[in-house]
């Protein structure tokens, strides 16, 4: 189904209505009087994930999926009050993201003045909403938190990079916040009003990925029953974020390289190109230099993408940021779950500060979510932490990190820096934590072993054995 609605008598020749709507940097939805979707523009598709073919003829609330649609439909309010209505709300798109939006609705009249339907514009409020919320958070840039020297350098670099229009390559281990940085760059750039489209290059097979990224024309291959604009076209006047770029198949690397050269997209089966004004941000946890050396990544593409580079350090190299992040996520999950937790017990804090966090911030966040869920008192105790943490042998982090540049750092040089174990005073193993827990329990129970065993959730004989083993007097 491909429609060519036209506007007559405005200019000498009929105008392409769909093309006009596609050029407007707002999501636009046209509905009939029964609130069935008649038309939508490219920005709306980029925002919600619904194409015209998917949405045409179905009730608008199942396409926009805004909370306003269910709580107090702004379109019906427009009809009741006979005037345009504007409200802020949120939508959930097909990528399962909740986005803040401003919805403005108006009635559509025909040439005779008869009411024939509604038009709705959807403004993406992500940039302004996040700015308001994060304004008061110290040691941060957008949603990224840190006060270590490495992060300070990155915070100084990001606003400059955001203002330029250069391609950016973000590298770093998994869980270091590459997605967050990409979105922060977009939201603080001149393209913040445009779409931010993310593609995971490792999530789809090569054949599907090509049509997903570059689009296809109807009949280009078996099963191509409709035109598909492709993510590059949807990201027009915005930013495209290619995550896991290291997983991009070689043939598509060539096609991406061609785009970076002439900025024209050729959907599969198309004879005419589309001039896409898109900024590219790519990210990977892989060592692209090494991939180039073994022929898995094109050298020329690496050079094209590597105009500016941001390397996100792993958490173990961010020293004091761990405490900052622990407090941040404790605060976040405590509020979210309506609990009253004020801090950490000494043993719990010791375990948390000495853990290596191979999954980086993602792992730290998950640990905190678990701990807040499990905690029964007003402090996070060591036994509220996931068991694997307590079995873990701590490795000392680099606490004094020399000032290094955020851009560029060759990833091949970013091998984990491990140093000798910490001094006996600060080293915390599960044994020492457990010993401390037994002492605490004995203090609470005033030396009564039965009660102490109950507090610790172990049998009296186990407690007796452990007291002997730890030589607790």
């Amino acid at each position: 189904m491909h429609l060519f609605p036209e506007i007559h008598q405005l200019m000498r020749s009929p105008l392409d209505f769909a093309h006009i709507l596609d050029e407007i940097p707002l999501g636009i939805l046209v509905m009939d009087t029964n609130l069935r979707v008649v038309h939508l523009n490219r920005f709306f598709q980029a925002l919600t994930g619904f194409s015209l073919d998917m949405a045409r003829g179905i009730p608008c609330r199942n396409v926009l999926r805004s909370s306003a649609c269910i709580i107090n439909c702004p379109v019906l309010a427009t009809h009741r009050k006979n005037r345009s209505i504007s409200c802020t709300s949120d939508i959930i798109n097909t990528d399962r993201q909740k986005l803040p939006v401003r919805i403005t609705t108006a009635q559509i009249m025909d040439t005779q003045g008869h009411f024939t339907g509604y038009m709705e514009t959807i403004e993406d409020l992500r940039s302004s909403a996040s700015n308001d919320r994060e304004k008061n958070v110290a040691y941060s840039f957008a949603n990224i938190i840190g006060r270590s020297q490495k992060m300070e350098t990155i915070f100084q670099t990001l606003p400059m990079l955001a203002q330029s229009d250069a391609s950016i390559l973000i590298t770093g281990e998994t869980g270091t916040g590459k997605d967050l940085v990409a979105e922060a760059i977009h939201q603080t750039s001149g393209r913040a009003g445009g779409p931010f489209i993310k593609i995971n290059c490792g999530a789809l097979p090569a054949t599907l990925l090509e049509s997903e990224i570059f689009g296809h024309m109807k009949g280009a291959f078996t099963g191509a029953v409709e035109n598909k604009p492709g993510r590059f076209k949807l990201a027009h006047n915005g930013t495209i974020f290619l995550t896991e770029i290291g997983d991009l198949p070689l043939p598509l690397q060539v096609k991406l390289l061609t785009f970076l050269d002439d900025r024209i997209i050729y959907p599969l089966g198309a004879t005419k190109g589309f001039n896409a004004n898109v900024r590219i941000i790519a990210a990977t946890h892989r060592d692209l230099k090494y991939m180039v050396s073994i022929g898995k990544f094109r050298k020329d593409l690496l050079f094209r993408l590597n105009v500016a580079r941001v390397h996100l350090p792993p958490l173990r190299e961010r020293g004091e940021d761990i405490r900052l992040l622990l407090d941040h996520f404790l605060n976040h999950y405590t509020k979210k779950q309506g609990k009253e937790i004020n801090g950490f017990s000494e043993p719990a804090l010791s375990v948390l500060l000495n853990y290596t966090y191979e999954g980086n911030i993602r792992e730290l966040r998950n640990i905190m979510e678990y701990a807040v869920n499990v905690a029964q008192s007003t402090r996070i105790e060591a036994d509220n932490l996931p068991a694997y943490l307590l079995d873990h042998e701590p490795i000392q982090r680099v606490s004094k990190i020399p000032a290094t540049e955020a851009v560029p750092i060759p990833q091949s040089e970013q091998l984990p820096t491990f140093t000798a174990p910490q001094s006996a005073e600060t080293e915390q193993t599960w044994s020492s934590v457990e010993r401390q827990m037994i002492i605490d329990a004995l203090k609470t129970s005033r030396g009564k072993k039965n009660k102490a065993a109950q507090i610790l959730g172990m049998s009296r004989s186990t407690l007796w054995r452990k007291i002997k083993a730890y030589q607790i007097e």
Partner: protein
Amino acid sequence: MTLHKTAIPILGEEIVPRFDLTTEVIILTTAEFSDIQDKKIIVLPRSSPDELCHTLLVQEINTLICGAIEDEYYEFLKWKKIEVFDGVSGNWSHAFKRWQTQTLNSGDIFFTRMIEGRLI
């Protein structure tokens, strides 16, 4: 015989477009994909995705058929071993019949497409 419980957040006869704004859930019990053995509707005191997730866990739901759902809740329910068909819209009984015949997919739309009263 293993019983299978399917939950569908509803709004009248339709699947509610947003999981987090659900106030009514229908729970259908079947022996695997066969006929319905039990049907009950739970009315929630308020719409809250956290409370709804809790209800689904307490009710030992195996499959959830719902509209738009945030990734956080989707991943949580999948982690709790609940099969989730999200982005489904239209009449809930049509969606359930498709689930019974094992032809339901996430994103399925069960509305009759119409514009200005005419089928398209």
